[in-house]
């Protein structure tokens, strides 16, 4: 495997501001955040609720645009892109995993995983094949036709992870991915993320659970819209393996 850390950084954000005006009050959800994430990093963004960590992830995940500042993702400036172009960036470069899974109900696991490929314009047969591969990768090869309501929370999150990786993204953003899961399932899901990271994916998590942050190679702490701490660490499983 090539050393990904030698390629140019995946995320280069400079002086990001996200400002909301509520009447006379001006609220800085992000205040002068500058951040670089290299390829192959596993970043955990921590902080109390209302600290701006979700806003940061939305901006980095191209779901939202910063009020000011520049943001280059995979070498491309994205802070000035239109809604349609941002959708393409989300589709090709990014995978999302949410706390509440955000699967389409009454739609099979396979079809949920196919969704990003539909918008990428992939032909049906290839879509089916790749979605099946992704589900097999997360250990749900036998649950292709199940609907979210027929799956456990951990299985639903695995479907969501399969959906996030099916389009072979460069980076995965996860917002409290274990927030709705019990401890045992949380560990299983985190091990799955660990494996994906080992395969070379870059991960950025938002979490307030220290247990989850232990898996990361780097922990950012956000407070009042600013990065107040940025520490590299030895990830949990690496410790165990050592």
């Amino acid at each position, binding site marked *: 495997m090539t050393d990904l850390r030698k390629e140019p950084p995946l995320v280069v954000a400079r002086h990001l501001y996200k400002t909301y005006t509520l009447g006379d009050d001006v609220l800085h959800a992000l205040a002068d955040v500058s951040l670089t994430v290299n390829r192959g990093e596993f970043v955990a963004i921590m902080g109390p609720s209302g600290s701006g960590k979700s806003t940061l992830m*939305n901006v980095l995940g191209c*779901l*939202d645009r910063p009020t000011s500042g520049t943001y280059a993702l995979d070498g491309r400036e994205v802070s000035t892109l239109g*809604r*349609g172009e941002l*959708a*393409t960036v*989300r*589709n*090709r470069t990014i995978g*999302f995993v*949410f706390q509440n899974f*955000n*699967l*389409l109900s*009454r739609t099979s696991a396979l079809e949920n995983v196919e*969704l*990003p490929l*539909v*918008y*990428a*314009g992939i032909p049906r047969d290839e879509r089916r094949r790749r979605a099946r591969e992704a589900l097999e990768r997360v250990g749900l090869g036998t649950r292709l036709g199940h609907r979210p309501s027929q799956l456990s929370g951990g299985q639903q999150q695995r479907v969501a992870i399969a*959906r996030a990786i099916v*389009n072979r993204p460069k980076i995965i953003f996860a917002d409290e991915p274990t927030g709705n899961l019990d401890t045992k399932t949380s560990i299983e899901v985190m091990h799955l993320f660990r494996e994906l990271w080992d395969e070379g994916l870059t991960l950025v998590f938002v979490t307030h659970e220290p247990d989850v942050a232990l898996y990361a190679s780097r922990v950012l702490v956000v407070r009042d819209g600013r990065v107040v701490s940025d520490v590299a660490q030895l990830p949990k499983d690496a410790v165990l393996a050592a």
Partner: protein
Amino acid sequence: MNVANVLPIAFAALWRNKTRSFLTMLGIIIGVASVISMVAVGEGAKARVSAVFSGMGTNLLIVLSGSTSSGGVMGGFGSMPTLTWDDLRAIRAQAPAVRAAAAQQTTRATLMVDDANWTTSVGGVTPEFFEIRDWQTLKGSLFGETDDQTGSKLIVLGATVAGRLFGPGSDPVGRTIRIRAVPFVVLGILERKGQSPMGSDYDDVAYIPMRTFQNQIQGGLQKFIAGIIMVSALTSVDTKRAQTEITGILRDRHHLGTMDDDDFNIRNLTEIANAQQQGTKALTSLLAAIAIVSLVVGGIGIMNIMLVSVTERTREIGVRMAVGAKPWHVLAQFMAEALTLSMIGGMIGVVLGSSLAKLAASKLGWSYVPRLDTAVLAFAFSAMVGFVFGLYPARKAARLDPIDALRFE
């Protein structure tokens, strides 16, 4: 993402709320069905009027003689004979727009056979009459010029009269009928014409040659025609010209000054028929307009339900956007749903409307004419309604902010 992807998604979304989708469609179904059936009913009425008038003859003009005036009491048209046989010959010879002209004199008489009798209208006609009325025989033949000249005692019976005298389905050709003790030989039976616009029976009638009528019934030859002249114009557009020509000829022949009124009257049946047609046409348009209003109301129903659907599925829209759906993908998806609703509704409406029109036609005894243009138009209009009323909800969905949509509870 293309049409092949959008349609199954739209179908699936609509199938999920079957009852709601059907009720929404119902507005369009009723709208389209009423457009189709209303236009068909209007067309049926028009065809009926047209058939009734064409039963009288093609491009027909009727020339009546003038009115008597007795102490200020006007006798009405036809009460004073002013039309002469020479007038008839002049019309035939001098009016280029006239195809044929015939004289008709009528009386009521009792027709007797051995064991039956029937009182009906007996017409003395010149042979052109049958050509003008476009009337063929069912059995036997018609009398011609020679029969008229020689005053042959021949008679042609309407279907009703033949049935009354000889029984339905019999063949009385060659048998003898007596009118006022004068024997007539049955030459032919006329095909059925049905009802006149006023409801009388065209087939309750018998015709004999004009010369025979004058000799045997009227008594002696007369200078004047104690009846009417029937004229057939060359084509339907020539009826007006024929009317003008005949007016000119008759005024000239009757030596009428510029200040004098006509001493005759010309009825242009094509114009009367056209006026009737206009009436039914206006009715058809009115019915169609009402039906179109209901189609628009159906469209508002679609908009309403699409707005509900967009709100309900805000989270779904957010998820789709997060994984890479562009605004136009979302727009296309909701437009596809609105169009699917309206077009399926339109199709069902076309089928339902056609069946209703067919049913109405059979109940009213009209002929049902399937109108492809109306069906296509109504269907296209329903699709347009779906497009117009689907656009606003679809745009609303496409303009959602992905984060707000994902957070929507």
